[in-house]
């Protein structure tokens, strides 16, 4: 190890710095573009710092209400979805982690099988729209495919199996505690790391979800921020249509507005995520342990 430790150190730091630049550069380009004047963008293209600083894109966005609505819907969907995910997942993972529940093997298999086989998009779409009439409802953004899944359930079950000693549960039972009480007052307080992990994963999934908006929503009032981005990506005029009522006299700075919407859709995650990264990394490695 002594041979050329110093050279090796410089090399690995250099590689990581290059990787980090690769990962960060696009975001710098994005933020810079959203703060550049439309004319400069059209003339000089996107660059890593604003050649002609301007906040017109953000002003334009703030002049209409679609961006605020989209934020509201996104926050609502993320909050409800994450809460439901945590509740539903812990409630099934706890019994599945216990040794002596009759029918446990069969139920575990039913959960596991969903990871192996699926009906696919076409039948799911028809079921949600024709049986549950989910089109253009808030439920369409929360329920289809996002709420919980076999992987999350199995991950949480493994955590309970490894980290909640049977004796603790047994002594709670001897003290006369009901199972519901044990789950919420004994098991969950001991499981904060996995709750944080699943909560962060679910929150990010809901915040970033655009598929359900694309499949099931046509009402602009139900656009999430990602849904709005999705529609703008292939139709640069989309935002103009929405904003035109309240800002008919403003010409739309389309190129910079697109970038501004993306900034608004990603920056919250970029700001919040480093604080949760610890849980995210920890939980993934727990999940990697086979239960």
């Amino acid at each position, binding site marked *: *190890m*002594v041979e050329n430790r110093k050279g090796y*150190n410089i090399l690995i*730091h250099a*590689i*990581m710095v290059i*990787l*980090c630049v690769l*990962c*960060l550069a696009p*975001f710098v*380009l*994005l933020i810079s*573009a959203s703060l550049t004047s439309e004319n400069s963008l*059209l003339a000089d*293209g*996107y*660059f890593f710092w604003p050649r002609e600083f301007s906040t017109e894109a953000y002003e334009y966005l703030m002049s209409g209400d679609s961006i605020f609505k989209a934020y509201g819907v996104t926050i609502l969907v993320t909050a409800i979805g994450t809460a439901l995910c945590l*509740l*539903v*997942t812990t*409630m099934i993972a706890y019994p599945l982690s*216990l040794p002596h529940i009759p029918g446990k093997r069969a139920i575990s298999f*039913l959960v*596991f099988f969903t990871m*192996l*086989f*699926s*009906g*696919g*998009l*076409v*039948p*799911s779409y028809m*079921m949600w729209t*024709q049986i549950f009439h989910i089109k253009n409802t808030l439920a369409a953004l929360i*329920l*289809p*495919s996002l*709420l*919980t899944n*076999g992987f999350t359930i199995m991950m949480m079950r493994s955590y309970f199996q490894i980290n909640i000693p049977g004796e603790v549960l047994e002594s709670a039972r001897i003290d006369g505690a009901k*199972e*519901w009480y044990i789950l919420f007052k004994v098991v969950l307080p001991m499981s904060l790391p996995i709750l944080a992990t699943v909560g962060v994963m679910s929150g*990010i999934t809901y*915040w*970033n979800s*655009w*598929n359900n908006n694309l499949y099931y929503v046509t009402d602009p009032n139900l656009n999430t921020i990602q849904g709005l*981005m999705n529609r703008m*990506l*292939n139709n640069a005029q989309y935002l103009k249509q929405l904003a035109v009522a309240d800002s008919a006299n403003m010409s739309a700075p389309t190129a910079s507005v697109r970038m501004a919407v*993306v900034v608004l859709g*990603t920056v919250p*995650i*970029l700001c919040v*995520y*480093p604080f949760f*990264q610890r849980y995210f990394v920890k939980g993934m490695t727990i999940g*990697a342990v086979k239960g």
Partner: protein
Amino acid sequence: MTYRKRKKKTYQIKKYIPFYLMMMPALIYLFINNYMPMPGLVLAFKQYNVREGIFGSPWVGLRNFEFLFTTNDAWVITRNTILYNLAFMVFGTVCAIGAAIILNDIISKRAKKAYQTIILLPYMISIVAVAFLVNAFLATDEGFINNYIMEPLGFEPISFYMEKKYWPFLLVFLNLWKNVGYNCIFYLANLGGIDPGYYEAAALDGATRWQRFSRITLPFLNPTIITMTILAVGRIFYSDFGLFYQVPMQSGTLFPVTQTIDTYVFYGLMGGGSMGASAAAGFYQSLVGFVLVLATNIIVNKVSKENAMF
């Protein structure tokens, strides 16, 4: 059965009722979301019309499949899906292990954490946002590459969204860019568990860096590599819909290199293609995907039992 025994049995079942109640919401959800659509796969054998619904529509036997497989589409989407997934698997694993080893060798805790946070960032943002980022680089008129690299060097601007040849590389690169930080978490966790004593002993015996890697590090990582590869092989018929749908911005010219089974099914469903062929492609994906999972698992069971999934 004596009275007492029966009483004991009902008592026992009663004891378990709260557990079944707890499991109910998730089971109902999985039943609706995952199991109820499964019978809908029969649509692949039907001539769908909205009025009569999935089950009322008339049977047409294998006509949808004939339609799908007589066109070139079936071949193109299968090839793209499998080749991209293979490339993601190979390059993804190599890069993730490389990044994990480098991160593991970095002594400063703060630098290590900062690097890890930054390379995980791309994983955290939605693929729609990625499509915009890519567009900022590649757009023909305003894109960074054409304005600040091609033009100053005196080259003609490139219409990236019209040229097929760049996209296989671009898509593989983007997949790496987005997922390396995430995949390396798993390997990093493993590396942390290797006793440094092994390396010291090897160094004393004069083992080269490469020997230490191939004789100590790699064997430790093997179980994780195998598990991740099995999972990936099981999903080889499923593509990352967002990547192939959003990033090429639905450019029809690029379809021969960007269309996968998932995007094909989507276009059929949303009216951009044939509904029957779309249902048939969906059926084909579910079935072959399932067979592949089972087959991989059987093979793994034979080769190294402890890595099998079931």
